[in-house]
């Protein structure tokens, strides 16, 4: 066994390193020249504090299931839940329901789990022999449940339940509470990070 020593041209390597350094320096100067004026340009910032007269940023969540409580919308419909203006909207391809934040009597969030296989596929799993369908029931995912209690124009009490992907209900609740919705249970503070 023999190991060959590679021949390294040190002077050529040094020249290439210097050229690269010069190129990076030139690019840095170019970016500084163009970037510095932009730093002082009065462009509207997204992280502007609330209550400065500008509309609050909207929260949009797709693939939300309305379990119950949509007047015009069928139970278990899927659609988009959004906070726009001063109201909560749930829209499907066919219809839209809107609830004004000031009419919300209580808003609460909860965690739950839902099975991965539902509907017609669930019925089909029952045909799997040797209890295979039961094994498939073990696969589930965590979800957030958003529950609203509100009153209509006549003062009538209504309720609605939405199922969202995990961790998506809290921002909507926070936004609605900021807009005047009542909540009997305040938003939980985020847990401190473990060091």
């Amino acid at each position, binding site marked *: 066994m023999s190991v060959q020593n590679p021949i390294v041209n040190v002077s050529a390597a040094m020249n290439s390193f210097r050229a690269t350094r010069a190129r990076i320096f030139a690019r840095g100067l170019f970016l500084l020249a163009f970037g510095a004026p932009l730093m002082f340009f009065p462009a509207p910032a997204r992280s502007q504090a609330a209550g400065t007269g500008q509309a609050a940023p909207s929260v949009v969540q797709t693939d939300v299931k309305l379990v119950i409580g949509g007047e015009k919308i069928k139970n278990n419909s899927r659609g988009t839940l959004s906070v726009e203006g001063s109201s909560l909207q749930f829209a499907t391809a066919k219809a839209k329901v809107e609830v004004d934040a000031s009419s919300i009597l209580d808003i609460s969030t909860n965690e739950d789990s839902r099975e991965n296989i539902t509907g017609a596929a669930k019925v089909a799993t029952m045909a799997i022999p040797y209890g295979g369908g039961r094994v498939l029931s073990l696969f589930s995912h965590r979800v957030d449940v958003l529950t609203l209690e509100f009153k209509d124009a006549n003062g009538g*009490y209504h309720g609605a339940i939405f199922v969202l992907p995990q961790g998506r209900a809290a921002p909507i609740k926070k936004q609605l509470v900021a807009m005047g919705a009542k909540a009997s249970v305040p938003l939980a503070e985020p847990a401190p990070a473990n060091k």
Partner: protein
Amino acid sequence: MKHHTRAAVSVIFLIGPACALVLLVGSLWGQTGSGDSKSAQKLSASSIQIEPMDPGDVPMPPEFRVAIYENLITQIEKTGKFQHVYRSGDKEAARVPDLVMLRTTAQSFRKGSQKEREVVTVAGSSSIILKVHITDHAGQTLVDRNVEGKVRFFGENLRATYDFSKKVANIVRDTF
């Protein structure tokens, strides 16, 4: 021997349908008789107002409270016994002279597990027991009984609220 067997079979074939006929006629006669007594006891009201569930001391998640209320509204509307089903707080309900009120109070609640139900079958059932109280416009009690809603084998936990509402709707059908 063969003759005896044949005779026995023919007798069985005759007695079987005869018994079934007697049972059928008897049950029909019984139904019409009890139907008359039921219709004599039935009450009438043009409208009903449904109050939100009172959880009392029973800890119940808010989604169950809301699901019970919304399912009750839907199922009582489906009975077709009332011209109007008013929600709690509706201003128009105050003008109705023969309004009846439906109130529910939680007695017990057990949130099961859908996973357990579908894997083990004999465990994980969800159950809610509520006292159903229907009063007339004068405050006189028309219905006061405990009703249980449950989901034993298949379906999400919230399905117990649907089961409960269906049973309350049946009570309303029998009463009005």
